[in-house]
């Protein structure tokens, strides 16, 4: 589904990703763990197409598309979703209106008719219940005045409504208490299916108790230095990254 080959990227002329290789087939959940500054969030930003990240080498294939050639909105319409580490506040943009614009942009791309308001409301209310989000949040401006946990839940809500083919979760667990973490994990688990892939980026093993990954990769200094099964996460939790950092 997503194949990354020898990906190099720089930010402000500093090389952050230094040759990433990663293959995530449909139906699998891969976790990337690593210390601060290892390039985790840069990888997420490059995949989503954020400005200011320059790809200097390598390629990314997403469902047969050269992902790096697509605009951010085209990537989203093809089914890529990024749950932001720091969701942006959009005062003045109503949450419901925003979700509807996103849903319809994606439907239009697929050649499907726009969703009518009744069906849309039903869908959103159902998904909001899934992430235990109060209906009043839907009427508020996107993330405006939301707490950290509410913002992350809103990311998961958007993901549940948009039903992407592939989702990148960029430290969605950071700063969440255990209850909020469970809600986020439940939202992700409800979407797990044979034709959907996930890349879960996290700093802490804790999240992986609730979202069980098929594979865990260790990212240090812009390279994947080790890959293994879910037990690797526990090992990292106990031993830390020091071993890898010195090796890298």
């Amino acid at each position, binding site marked *: 589904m997503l194949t990354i080959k020898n990906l190099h990227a720089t930010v402000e002329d500093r090389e952050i990703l230094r040759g990433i290789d990663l293959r995530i087939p449909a139906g699998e959940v891969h976790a990337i763990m690593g210390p601060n500054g290892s390039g985790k969030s840069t990888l997420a930003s490059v995949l989503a197409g954020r*400005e200011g990240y320059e790809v200097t080498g390598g390629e990314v294939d997403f469902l047969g598309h050269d992902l790096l050639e697509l605009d*951010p909105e085209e990537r989203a319409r093809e089914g890529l979703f990024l749950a932001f580490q720091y969701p*942006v506040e959009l*005062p003045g*943009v109503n949450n419901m209106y925003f979700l509807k614009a996103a849903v319809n942009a994606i439907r239009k791309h697929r050649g499907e008719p726009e969703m009518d308001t009744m069906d849309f409301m039903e869908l959103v209310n159902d998904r909001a219940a899934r992430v235990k989000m109060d209906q009043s949040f839907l009427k508020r401006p996107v993330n405006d005045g939301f707490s950290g946990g509410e913002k992350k839940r809103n990311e998961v809500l958007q993901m549940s409504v948009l039903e992407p083919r592939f989702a990148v979760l960029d430290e969605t667990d950071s700063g969440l208490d255990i209850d909020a973490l469970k809600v986020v994990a439940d939202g992700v688990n409800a979407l797990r299916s044979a034709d959907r892939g996930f890349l879960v980026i996290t700093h802490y093993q804790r999240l992986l108790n609730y979202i069980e990954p098929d594979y865990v990769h260790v990212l240090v200094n812009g390279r994947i230095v080790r890959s293994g099964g879910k037990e690797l996460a526990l090992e990292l939790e106990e031993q830390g990254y020091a071993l890898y950092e010195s090796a890298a």
Partner: protein
Amino acid sequence: MTAIALHDQDAVSGVFERLLHDRSEPTGLTARRRDALARFQRLPFPHRRQEAWRFTDPSLLQELRLEHLPPGPPVLDAGRLPRALTPHRLVFVDGRFVAGLSVLPEQGRVMVGSLAGMWRDEAQRAILESYLDNLPGLEDQPFLALNSALHADGVYVRLRRGAVLETPLEILHVATGEDRASYPRHLLVLEDNAEARVVEHYVGEGRYLCAPVTEIRLGANAMLDHYRYQAESMEAGHLGALRLYLSAHANASTTLLGGGAKLHRTEVAAHLAGQGAHAELRGLALTRDRQLSDYHVRVEHEVPHCTSNQLFKSVLDDQSRVVFDGTIKVHRDAQKTDAQQSSSNLLLSRRAQAQSNPRLEIHADDVSCSHGSTTGFLDKDALFYLRARGIGEAEARAMLVYAFAHEIVDNTRLETLQARLEALLRERLTLAQEDLA
């Protein structure tokens, strides 16, 4: 018809004498006009060297050759009028009232009509004598003086104690171009506990000058929701003034909306003269091409316990320019004043320019006053966030611009006007999107 330029004093005097000749008016009014003309001629003609005009180049005015109107009723086909915003509408063409195109509310405790007509009404004359050109503020504004000297007509609204204007009132002014100048003059007097919602609406075609003055006097506990929507021709000059006078516990909300005119300037003076009064002043300017839009606002807190709030926003495209100059003056006795001011500008083009000059003059020591001003481009992170959800760049930009302006648009408590503004925003955003392509 004679072509005149406004800075030519002899020509202005000539126009003035002809105006007096064409109209037979009560001597009280003629005396006022003479005083005003003398004031206009005494005041220096606006120039960039004056502080008040530093950022707004009035030399643009000199491109306008201004024709004085011939006597006789104006002629306009009703089909050329924009759709009415409310069922009750007074229509003016080039400054003159057109009764045949107007629909007035039932008269009684509510009195609505043409200002010129009211001078002939003995019962109203005392009110005119007391309030017309007699409210404080903007004494040094030459275009207000010129309007006082040369106005043909306008709206007179008087609400007796406790009277409520049930249906909002639209004052529509249509300019027909051809380098004509018009000076609409409106007087709104709301006595104690009276309540009204009034929309001034300015449109036109071609090149002309429209210099409206509105004077508003609110009695104790009176409440006014007022809008001035200028959708002038892109070749026009619009130089407006607004004086607001608030008695105790009066509540005035005025919203200045603008998308038209090559040169637009509106000067506002609000005097909070009775304890517990509240003034809400909002503005939204949408500019493009080489338009210049300028809001000069002065709020005077004269007595304790008054509150005021200024919120001005501009969306600038192309090489347009916007000026906001806002003053809060708190007089020595006006303790417990709460006065806020905020202006923000959203630049859609690197060539657009915004200038904000907040001024606080505080002579009391127990007050809460603040001002804030921001100017910036669309937030890149916000744009990326929307695009990362599949929303196209053009639509994402439109959503963010709308989000910026919504505070003013959503507070427009007249649905028809709100819809008109939304349409204007959409039109402007479509234009901005074409620029991107």
